[in-house]
């Protein structure tokens, strides 16, 4: 931080307006970014942040407004024009070719070659020089499919640097990273600005803005609200500017009153896709009226645990009792019938059929039952009426049950899933990363919904990689490490460092 030079303006966007038909995605937005600064663009999903940077990168053409790069007015016709002016963009969904090596991905489109024959030796050398200069650790000959998400992101950053980028746009760079990888990324960003690079970072995670950004421009519903110096504002200031109202981070909840045991897992063993043990002798209990949070670093058996609990994956051995009945070995529908509902981690792959309407997704678990179908025929009036009720109740926007689910924003997709799962009236609700990729408004909503379930006397199992979330929402916290629960603490007054140590495999004593 604080490497910026007030006299040199790297990017200036003046009066950018972008209309798509009748929708105004950007309304007269100004943005000034100085050379060497980290400038955050903050806004809820759909506020218009990505639209704004897409016009900077030449992917969209603004209806009106001008763009100046280093003082020179530029018409960004295509990404190639932007690249030519030293702008690089790291997309939220990585643009990497999985079977290609790291170096091949970086040089693609600007290959080092002799008469058309690739010169991989020179390419590797050039890439490694960049890698060392900016502290972007990579394995040049590894294939993308075999490296971590964090390294994939470093490859994306190197792709822009290899093309000579001085201004880097990072679109939601932390959405897919583990806490450790986020720390690494922050170091990288500091390295880049130390060497004179300018960074524009799109995010809705306030903590990261405080950690890394110098300035922050807040966008709400397509309009610029303000540009602030990050050091002068608090996280809650940023949040209320973003949402337009006060937001509570603290989840308000009463002391829990645990009742009977709903879920009991004993000595569960599950293997992963590569046939390697992932869950190794895991045991836990969740009672009525309490939320058990599972904290842990990604890849410690969380996915396999959830898959086994929901019947997607076969367990090797162990016991899973729901209200005293063993559900291990049942198929997903059989488990649903035991009043277990799940908010899956990947809402687009497992939570929803994106091509289906909201109404179809809402009855997808119950379409066989009356009144939704009779004798194999779907009863659409009844389906729509039921969906309309839930859409209203759970405040899904737009409030049209025939809307295609894939066109909803992430937060509204999650609301559809929550509406479906909660309306099943489960005894056990399993929520996996329920707020992944959501903005603060939506996060608050999801957290309240989980606590409301608890207060109704349901058992809730929350599995999340966000430690803050686990601590704030849960009543008890179990730490998962290498497929086992290695420690358990009360959430109230929990010590983040102690939990962090257990997550990393340190002892609990």
């Amino acid at each position, binding site marked *: 931080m604080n490497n910026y030079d007030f006299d040199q303006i790297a990017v200036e966007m003046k009066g950018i307006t972008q209309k798509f038909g009748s929708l105004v995605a950007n309304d007269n937005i100004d943005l000034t970014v100085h050379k060497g600064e980290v400038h955050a663009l903050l806004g809820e999903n759909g506020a218009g942040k990505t639209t704004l940077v897409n016009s900077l990168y030449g*992917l969209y053409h603004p209806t009106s407004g001008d763009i100046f790069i280093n003082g020179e007015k530029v018409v960004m016709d295509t*990404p*190639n024009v932007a*690249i030519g002016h030293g702008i690089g*963009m790291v*997309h939220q969904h990585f*643009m*990497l*070719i*999985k*079977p*290609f090596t790291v170096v*091949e991905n970086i040089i*693609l*489109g*600007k*290959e080092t*070659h002799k008469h*058309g*024959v*690739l010169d991989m030796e020179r390419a590797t050398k050039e890439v490694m020089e960049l890698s060392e200069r900016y502290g972007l650790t990579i394995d040049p000959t590894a294939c993308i499919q075999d490296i971590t998400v964090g390294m994939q992101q470093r490859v994306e950053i190197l*792709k822009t640097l290899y093309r000579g980028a001085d201004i880097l746009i990072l679109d939601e760079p932390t959405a897919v990273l583990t806490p450790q990888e986020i720390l690494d990324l922050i170091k990288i960003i500091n390295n880049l600005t130390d060497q004179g690079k300018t960074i524009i970072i799109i995010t809705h995670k306030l903590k990261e803005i405080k950690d890394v950004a110098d300035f922050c421009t807040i966008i709400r519903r397509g309009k610029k609200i303000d540009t602030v110096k990050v050091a002068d504002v608090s996280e809650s200031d940023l949040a209320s500017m973003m949402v337009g109202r006060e937001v509570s981070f603290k989840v308000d909840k009463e002391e829990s009153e645990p009742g009977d045991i709903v879920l009991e897992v004993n000595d569960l063993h599950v293997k992963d896709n590569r046939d390697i043990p992932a869950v190794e002798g895991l045991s836990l209990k969740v009672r009525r009226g309490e939320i058990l949070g599972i904290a842990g670093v990604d890849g410690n058996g969380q996915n396999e645990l959830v898959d086994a609990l929901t019947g997607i994956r076969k367990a090797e051995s162990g016991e899973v009792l729901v209200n005293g009945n063993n559900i291990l070995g049942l198929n997903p529908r059989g488990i649903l019938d035991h009043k277990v509902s799940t908010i899956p981690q990947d809402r687009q792959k497992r939570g929803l059929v994106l091509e289906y309407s909201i109404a179809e997704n809402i009855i997808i678990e119950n379409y066989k039952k009356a009144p939704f179908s009779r004798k194999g025929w779907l009863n659409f009036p009844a389906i729509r009426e039921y969906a309309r009720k839930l859409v209203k109740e759970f405040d899904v926007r737009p409030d049209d049950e025939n809307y295609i689910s894939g066109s909803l924003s992430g937060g509204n997709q999650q609301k559809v899933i929550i509406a479906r799962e909660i309306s099943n009236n489960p005894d056990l609700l399993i929520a996996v990363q329920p707020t992944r990729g959501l903005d603060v408004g939506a996060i608050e909503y999801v957290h309240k919904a989980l606590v409301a379930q608890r207060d109704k006397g349901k058992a809730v199992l929350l599995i999340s990689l966000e430690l803050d979330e686990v601590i704030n929402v849960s009543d008890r916290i179990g730490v998962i490490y290498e497929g086992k629960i290695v420690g358990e603490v009360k959430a109230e007054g929990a010590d983040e460092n102690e939990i962090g140590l257990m997550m990393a495999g340190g002892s609990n004593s």
Partner: protein
Amino acid sequence: MLLESIAFLLGTTLMYATPLIYTSLGGTISENSGVVNIGLEGIMFMGAFIGAAIGYYTHSGWIGFLAAGVVGGLFGLLHAVACISFTADQVVSGIAINFLGPGFALLLSRLMFDGAAMTLPLPLDEKISRPLNGLFPQNSFFDVILNRYSTVYLAFFLVLVVWFVLYKTKLGLRIRSVGEHPEAAATLGIDVYKIRYMSVIASGVFAGFGGAAVSVAIVSQFRITLISGQGFIALAAMIFGKWKPQGAMWACLLFGFAQAIVVFMPRTGIEVSSQLLSMLPYILTLILLVVFVGKSVAPSADGKIYEKN
């Protein structure tokens, strides 16, 4: 006797594998760029006719062979226009070409050869040459295996060329990138349409060669039963060979060997129904596809429509 049999089997394997190799190389190029081309069967059919007909009229098997490549390329262009520019379904377009190729070839054959569904045969000395003829004593072990038409050697040379282009050159990197993730390639300034056009046209050229490699080398005329599924077998070989030129080559040799057994069995005196025997390459295709298709991995964007913004 044993040595003679081995030599015969190996030599015949090379002969029958050759047309398959050309066509499967075409499929490999096209599918690595992300375009499925099941029209290769129809293009091969057309190539067989053009090779024999042009060869007959120009008195040169080689000119016929090259002409077959050109016409094959035109059919490839047709497939490219349909699937790339007009984003048609690639399988549907391929099926259309499989009807169009044979139909067109037959029509031209009837027009050019007095209503016959076959061309007039090329004289032996106008066929593709055998450059190694006379190098080994006639009918010796190596003569039987290696004394082949030039198209055989060219096919193996092209395997090397296609492998080199795909894996060692800038163009190859780009071809594979648009077959894996066209959006990513496009963000790096690569013209996805251009690369795919080139690749699909090349696949047509290769399938045209494949057809002509039957009609002006293995035999010396075009008949309607000449290709009968070899284009599809070549596609199966490409899949069995994991979309790689060298893999496809080995698979083609395996199919060629099956064909060689079909020809060899009657010589052994063992009585096997000839109808059953001639099913062998097709049954082998089925078995290999059933067993291996699930396991091999096609380029990610293979067969998927890509549209520019």
